[in-house]
């Protein structure tokens, strides 16, 4: 074995990979959330669909997205390998065990929380990511008046007929800027109009909050990063930003859309 292979197969090295992939995934959540906040805009999904197109067609982001898929797989596979190894280190479990006396609930249940998140990611990507790429989504045409930005004409283009492509141009005859885009927004609204889907998302976001409450600060420790000057900041971010604010903001999206569809 080379020095690198030895390093990564050690108990410390395996957790280094967990920490690096985990923190990368945490960082992605911020970008993902900023994008998803477009869903709160009352513009028939124009901003959100533009964002979706940008995320799938801008080359640097495409490259990062492959890194991201690899991180999810690595994080899950290493979690399994580490868990099996750790279970083997204690084959006979204690008859009476008081884990709450010395550790947080999250830290002892990362595997269960992670499994919930993995199932969620499969459903989530199947519903949006897969449909966006290969699901034959309908296109919508947005016509913005150049003189009055709030004057937008929205036309749902028919699915039948010639295959459409994403287009942005200015129609000089009508004096309007035209955007033809794949309408992922419609899929999002349709999904979140069903209650069980909203419940699934909210539960998953609660699981994510608990997972990150331990995971964010633990990730830094796995890299060996531990400093009295920065640790309080990391713990604060892990608890408030990644444990509460980000999951709550994500969970607010399906709830908001569900409530707005109720009124229609």
């Amino acid at each position: 074995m080379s020095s690198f292979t030895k390093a990564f197969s050690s108990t410390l090295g395996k957790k280094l990979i967990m920490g690096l992939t985990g923190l990368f995934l945490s960082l992605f959540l911020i970008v993902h959330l900023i994008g998803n906040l477009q869903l709160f805009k009352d513009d028939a999904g124009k901003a959100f669909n533009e964002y979706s197109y940008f995320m799938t067609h801008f080359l640097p982001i495409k490259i990062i997205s492959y890194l991201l898929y690899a991180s999810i797989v690595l994080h899950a596979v290493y979690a399994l390998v580490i868990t099996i190894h750790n279970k083997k280190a204690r084959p006979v479990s204690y008859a009476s065990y008081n884990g709450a006396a010395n550790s947080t609930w999250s830290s002892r249940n990362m595997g269960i929380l992670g499994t919930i998140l993995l199932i969620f990611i499969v459903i989530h990507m199947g519903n949006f990511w897969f449909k966006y790429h290969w699901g034959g989504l309908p296109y919508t045409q947005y016509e913005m008046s150049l003189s009055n930005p709030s004057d937008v004409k929205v036309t749902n283009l028919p699915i039948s007929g010639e295959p459409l492509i994403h287009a942005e141009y200015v129609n000089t005859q009508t004096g309007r800027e035209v955007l033809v885009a794949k309408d992922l927004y419609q899929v999002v609204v349709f999904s979140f109009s069903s209650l069980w889907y909203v419940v699934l998302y909210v539960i998953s976001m609660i699981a994510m909050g608990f997972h990150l409450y331990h995971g964010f600060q633990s990730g830094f420790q796995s890299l060996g990063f531990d400093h009295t000057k920065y640790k309080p900041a990391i713990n604060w971010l892990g608890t408030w930003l990644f444990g509460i604010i980000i999951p709550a903001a994500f969970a607010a999206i399906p709830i908001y859309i569900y409530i707005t569809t109720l009124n229609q």
Partner: protein
Amino acid sequence: MNLTLKVWRQRNASDKGGFVTYKADGISPDMSFLEMLDVVNEGLVKKGEDPIHFDHDCREGICGMCSLYINGRPHGPKRAITTCQLHMRSFSDGETITIEPWRATAFPVIKDLAVDRSAFDRIQQAGGYISVNTGGVPDANEIPVPKPIADEAFNSATCIQCGACVAACKNASAMLFVSAKISQLALLPQGQPERYRRVQSMVAQMDAEGFGGCTNTGACEIECPKEISMTNINRMRRDYFTAKFFKEEEIR
């Protein structure tokens, strides 16, 4: 005090073992936990039964010999003490106390509540030392060491190798012990020449003994009778990654 004890009894390493319930009557609240077991054992000997086997030596919290996983926690419910320093006043009259040995693949049960902790010795032998003779007494302050560093090294050096960190950890990880033994030398000038070789060989031995990995639950530092902190584990990680990824170990 009258107590009910649920004690793990196991004849030898290959025996399956199981819990046996004993009555511990007329216990003084001022007895230490080990003295309470002595009383129970005296009764067993009088009855002609095999006494409960448990590790103990100094009985003043410095040798690290006593163990016992009491009611789901190593060294019982109190913080920063060993089992010999735990007094029966920490329990209530009529309570049922479950007593188990340390549970880890790397700590096989010898008999009843005593486990074989020689895995720790082998980790120490893999590099937890300085390979030069100490020589005569040096002049004071010949090698300057900043006070916080000296204090931190001393904190790491207070580890008594009891194994409570392994017992407390849900992964039976020995990292608090190993990192304390690495830190006490890595922080001081005398430990520098072998610093990066030491961390690699001791971590390799730790993994070879079959201990689990650290998932940063922090249970070890809470249960450590000497209050050794998780900072040691993070320092070990830094040294290990530095050694593996950045240090030149051979002549070019």
